């Protein structure tokens, strides 16, 4: 039995359709990523999966629990890390964890033991007595995660947990998530940072305009766009004759697998090494001065770009 099954999920706010018939499953112990730009509908999906918002239509099952009919029953097994910091700033890390633990019916020794374990996992044992308002953004994010795992949920749902924090804290959070997953916790991780999703998730769903436009492992997604790399050629703007360059490129790439934007030429190609020297020669012949050349292996960004025609952070 899957840990989570989402079937034809749809949510409208008035005339605006935020989620349009999304279906996917997450297996027990799996780490599943939902990747998409801001406003794609990821958070709305999460809010429905956690039983916070009622969907307009569709089904959600967590194991054998119907989340729509019995949200409170499902929530006992779900931990949610919200996008914003959902903590009380004038309370210490330990006080916050104690309060949230009590909201999950923990008490006495088991609560204190759980708090100690969580503080160790998020690396804040030394700062447990300090008020959250004195913490850095990254530390607050770690307590935010801690509050979601106190009751040892089977499914941990993290909604953009690393927004706006320093690289060191981000690494700490990513390592924490890896550790929790390796200990058997099922993870759903939403982000618009493809590198995080690539690093953490075994399977990925790409979301855009409320739809799940692709899903699979990273390899499967790469293959779906033909495993094309991208060649970036940066050129000096002063020497650019756009019309002349476009004409030459069309002759060289009749299938139009290139883009000319501002002072950069980008070409999709399965084997970039084979065409690189000819491509550079062609551009130079048009009188254009090249300042740098960069080859990018296929990744989620290229998959998203290929599927939507937009960059993830557009």
């Amino acid at each position, binding site marked *: 039995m899957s840990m989570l099954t989402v079937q034809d999920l749809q949510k409208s706010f008035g005339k605006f359709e935020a989620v349009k018939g999304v279906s996917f499953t997450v297996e027990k112990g799996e780490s599943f990523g939902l990747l998409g730009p801001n406003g794609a509908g990821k958070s709305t999906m999460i809010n429905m999966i956690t039983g916070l918002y009622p969907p307009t239509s569709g089904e959600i099952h967590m194991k054998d629990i119907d989340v729509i009919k019995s949200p409170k029953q499902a929530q*006992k097994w779900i931990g949610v890390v*919200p996008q914003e910091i959902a903590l009380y700033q004038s*309370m210490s890390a330990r006080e916050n964890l104690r309060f*949230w633990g*009590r909201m999950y019916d923990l008490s006495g020794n088991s609560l204190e033991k759980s708090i100690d374990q969580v503080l160790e996992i998020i690396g804040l044992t030394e700062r447990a007595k300090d008020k959250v308002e004195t913490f850095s953004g990254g530390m607050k994010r770690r307590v935010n995660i801690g509050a979601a795992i106190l009751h040892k949920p089977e499914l941990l749902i993290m909604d953009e947990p690393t927004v706006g924090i320093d690289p060191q804290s981000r690494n700490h959070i990513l390592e924490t998530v890896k550790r929790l997953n390796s200990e058997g916790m099922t993870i759903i991780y939403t982000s618009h940072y493809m590198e995080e999703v690539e690093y953490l998730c075994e399977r990925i769903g790409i979301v855009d305009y409320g739809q799940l436009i692709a899903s699979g492992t990273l390899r499967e997604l790469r293959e779906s766009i033909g495993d094309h790399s991208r060649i970036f050629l940066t050129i000096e703007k002063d020497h650019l004759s756009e019309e002349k360059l476009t004409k030459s490129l069309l002759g060289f790439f009749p299938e139009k697998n290139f883009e000319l934007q501002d002072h950069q030429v980008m070409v999709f190609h399965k084997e970039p090494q084979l065409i690189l020297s000819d491509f550079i020669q062609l551009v130079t012949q048009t009188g254009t001065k090249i300042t740098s050349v960069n080859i990018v292996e296929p990744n989620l960004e290229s998959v998203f770009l290929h599927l939507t025609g937009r960059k993830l952070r557009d």
Partner: protein
Amino acid sequence: MKFWWLSWKDLLLIVRDKKALLTLILMPLLLIAILGSAFGDMMKEEETISIEKFTLGVVNLDQGPLSQVLTDDVLSKKLSKQIKVKYYQEDELYSRIKNHKLEVGIIIAKDFSQALMNGNGTKVKLISVPDTVIKSTIVQNVLEQFSRSIPIEAAVSQIAQPVQGGEQNSFVQEGYGENDLLKETTVDAKTIPVSSFQYYAAAMGVMFLLMTVVQGVSMMILEKEQEVFKRLLLTNLTYPNYLLGKLLGLIILCLMQASIIIVGTSLIFGVDWGESLSGIMLLTFAFVVNACGLGVLAGSFIKTEKAFNVAGMFGTQIMAALGGSMAPLYIFPDWVVFVTKILPNGLALQTYLKLMSGAAVSDILPAFAGSIVLGIAFFSIGLFRLSLERRGKYA
């Protein structure tokens, strides 16, 4: 028990908020001191003006000599500078007081003289429109004095009969009349004048409690706008438990503030809150429930914390002004004083003053019950509205 931890958390956050603490505790004490001193003289002047000559309606059902001594010698002659006596039939007296054409009246019972001479006490019913405390008190005092001395002298000189007892002044105990526009009271209820410090201790206390309610409800609305509210809904906490926890926290906070104001004014300024500690406790609890209920109801109509703060600030000021927290109730017409009892603070202030004037716990039970019932009604409607709102938005 999760609702209790929610209340505990709210109290902890308030206690740690120095700005909020300052507003909740120090400000009322400071204002009581300032206003009590500043308005002290003004209130004395009001009291002086109030005891200038007024009309006393008299119904004399007694055929004996002592009632005549009381009305002719004492009220009409000796107190002619303060009191003008007018005689009426019983129905007419009631009617005039009901219509506010007359403020105070007395009905001398049929066996007044006989009862007094037999040592069975004096039977006089004092009737007044509500809250004419000063005039009623004057008449009361006159009747008490009369019952102690004059009848004995008069009886000795006029009818030369010995009078037994007469020391104890036990006027007819009447409950409140069918019509609430009339106040019938026992004359032996000792009404003690309220000082300006006492008045403003109660008035400011009541006003600041209203402000605390606004602040508490405002925090509730703010929390709903924040991510912590969603997180709370995702825990095992049910929505009724959430609301119960929030309300309990607010009530405890208000009770704490009220206790500090009462004890603080008593210790620092020597304010006498009356002899009935249980009355003060019951009234405070009832007022807090009433005000919190009204706050939750008002909050259920307003979506954002900013909007509620603005509405709450105006609402509190208007209620405080009408309820007598800004200017003494004595300067308002009696009907305004009566109507403002509809407001939680108006009713509370008038009842606090009553307790300060020497009323017992039994005297404030109607106000206590009224406040509790209103508070529960306000809260129930607010709860219903909030539940509807939540169902429209959350699962």
